[in-house]
């Protein structure tokens, strides 16, 4: 098991290098360090010396991929790309182009993101699975058809609509919760409720449909027939046997996203004014702050790979037939 995880972590390295390469190429294709320095220093009267010192301060003064002046293999290693990537691998995100410490920013903004994302995920998962099982219980009836039509309709409405309609209804008309904002601790719960509820509702359609199809596939298996033959009630069959066996395909899709919850939701956070990682990214994109975008891309990629590994591990926990080697 440990050997397997260690090997998976080794596999992750080339992937992370690839991720870095992509972001690196994308940004420096149009934005050479000189352009960045000029943009950050302001357009007026930038002397070559100022640019040089700005670049030296942030370590942008090396060549991009190939250092012709250095000897031997160092030609490749003493470059901006290697320098910047190596730092990321030890999670040293460095300073943003505007001069703030990215590592500190990320660890500070992670918690507000999590406060929204985690309840949305947990409540959403439980409600959709329960709903799907209930619909499966009534399969083939008008209730099933009706529920599926509603599910498709929920899926077809833009997520932005839910957010805007929710804000207007609950905050502007009913005045139940504040329209946006954030506070840490338990006082902040009034800010969290609405985004969580909207997030859960928006995911209801797609989730229910997906779980329903998984459960429907299970329901025709032999063990279900055996369970019924034993005289178990339909509820018992569903919630004990079908649910457990359906967990495996559900896990594949669900566990991957758990680490990603740290990243927060771009749109939710910017609509509700939550100082999480999602709004951090939007700000960085708008300010064209390469250092932050690069750090966030790397962070996201690491979380995704962790999610993949967790998926494999969770298989061994839920399905004794699976052995990792």
């Amino acid at each position, binding site marked *: 098991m440990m050997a397997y995880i260690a090997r998976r972590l080794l596999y992750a390295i*080339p*992937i992370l290098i*690839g*991720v870095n390469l*992509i*972001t690196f190429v*994308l*940004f420096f*294709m*149009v*934005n050479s360090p000189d352009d960045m320095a000029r943009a950050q220093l302001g357009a007026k009267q930038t002397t070559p010396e100022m640019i040089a010192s700005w670049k030296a301060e942030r370590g942008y003064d090396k060549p991009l991929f190939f250092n012709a002046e250095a000897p031997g293999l160092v030609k490749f290693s003493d470059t901006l790309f290697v320098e910047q990537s190596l730092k990321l691998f030890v999670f040293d995100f460095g300073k943003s182009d505007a001069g703030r410490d990215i590592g500190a920013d990320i660890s500070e903004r992670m918690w507000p993101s999590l406060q929204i994302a985690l309840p949305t995920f947990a409540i959403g998962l439980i409600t959709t699975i329960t709903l799907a099982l209930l619909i499966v219980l009534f399969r083939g009836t008008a209730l099933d058809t009706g529920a599926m039509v509603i599910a*498709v*309709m929920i*899926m*077809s*409405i*833009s*997520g*932005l*609509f839910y957010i*805007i309609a929710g*804000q*207007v209804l609950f905050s*502007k008309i009913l005045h139940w919760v504040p329209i946006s904002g954030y506070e840490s601790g338990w006082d902040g719960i009034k800010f969290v409720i609405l985004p969580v509820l909207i997030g859960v509702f928006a995911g209801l359609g797609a989730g229910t449909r997906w779980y329903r199809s998984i459960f429907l*596939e299970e329901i025709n298996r032999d063990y279900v027939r055996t369970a019924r033959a034993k005289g178990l009630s339909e509820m018992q069959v569903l919630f004990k046997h079908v649910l457990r066996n359906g967990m495996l395909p559900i896990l594949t899709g669900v566990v991957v996203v758990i680490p*990603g919850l740290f*990243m927060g939701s*771009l*749109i939710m956070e910017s609509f509700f004014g939550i100082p999480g990682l999602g709004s951090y*990214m*939007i700000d960085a*994109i*708008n300010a*064209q702050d390469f250092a932050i*975008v690069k750090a*966030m*891309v790397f962070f*996201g*990629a690491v979380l*995704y*790979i962790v999610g993949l590994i967790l998926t494999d591990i969770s298989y061994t926990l839920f399905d004794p037939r699976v052995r990792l080697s």
Partner: protein
Amino acid sequence: MIWLLVVALGLWGWTISRSPQVKAQWIAIFRSKIAMSSAIILLFYLSIALLDSLHFRLALPNQTAGQAVQYSGQTTSVLDLVFNEIRNQTERTYSAPFALKEHSTSIIKDEAGLVQQVHLPLTHAGSHLDSAQARNQDILLKSLWAVFLAWLISKALISLHIYWRARVAKISWWQQAGLVVKGQTDLPWRTAYLTFSLALISLGWLYLLGHYYHVLGTDKVGGDVLYQSFKSVRTGVLIGVLTTLVMLPLALILGISAGLFRGWVDDVIQYLYTTLNSIPGILLIAASVLVMQTIISNHPEWFETATERADICLLVLVLILGLTSWTGLCRLLRAETLKISQVEYVTAARAFGVSRFKIIGRHILPNVMHIVLIAVVLDFSALVLAEAVLSYVGVGVDPTMHSWGNMINQARLEMAREPMVWWSLLSAFIFMFILVLAANLFSDRVQRVLDPKNN
């Protein structure tokens, strides 16, 4: 560009009609009433998009004979011509649907020199009315007239179609019509006709009343929201269709070769899609779009007109979306190809020395087509919705381009206004909802018919 697409679709349709099995599958799809009506709705959207894609530059008026014809800098599409009057009926600022006065108050001095806050009357809405009281009655009359007219047109077109069907079936018009009314035709033509008339009637109503009122209100600078919503159809449809077209060959080629050739090819392709997948999607798109925007704004000399630039922006966006979204389908195709290449008839074909390409063409492609089709229709609706989100983040289509995302984005800033400006938002959402709902329902049916698991 988009016309090439139509030709390709036509060719595809022709090949389908030649193969009896595939044809039977399609007929099975359309046997469902829901699939039939959603297909008709999709067709309506598609034809609006097509009308809007036929653009040209109008010749400028007042030209002296003998000179080379001068063209205006703005391109106009057929849809623009159809909506010419509605397009030009701009007001000063916001007004609610069917309103006769502006939404916000303005301060004016009356004759006595007193400063007053009043809602100024609109210049184009209801200008034919004598008094504001006559409005409701007028709307009712005009609506009845519009509905009647559209109903007549739809009836005429439907009877033409019945005539054609009757000719094919070699029965009289009345017999065919009787079958339709009783719902005894093989394909649910009754539902189809009903959907068609309903769609045509609502279009006709919106269009005719649009000449007298701002049916869906006006936006900040007084533009008609109805016209904007219709213009946005093209953007949404183009993004949905073109992106899948960019993504499809990539996913097909890479997915099938990974599954078939295995070894290092498989390793490289797997590495590629894991890498792309591990970058948070929206960040990747945002970064690429920002890069492209910088390039485009640094080279203004590449484009002749603003429309052309907006179109190029759209194409680039489509390219980026395509390049970032092929991974999911690729993985599915790889897994399926792995499975199929183990099947006996493929092994047999290989033993006989059939070339790899022939194996792909004859055995693998037809067997993965259902996955591709389902993925394409599902992606289409996801992309239409994604456009709105991307425009909101600021990395969507050109801000000058009409799109639902831009409409939502602009209207969002007015949320705090009292009383609220809701009509732009709502019309964008409804136009989007109908399109996505139709696509989703259609894909549902496609899935049910084509997925071998369900048979």
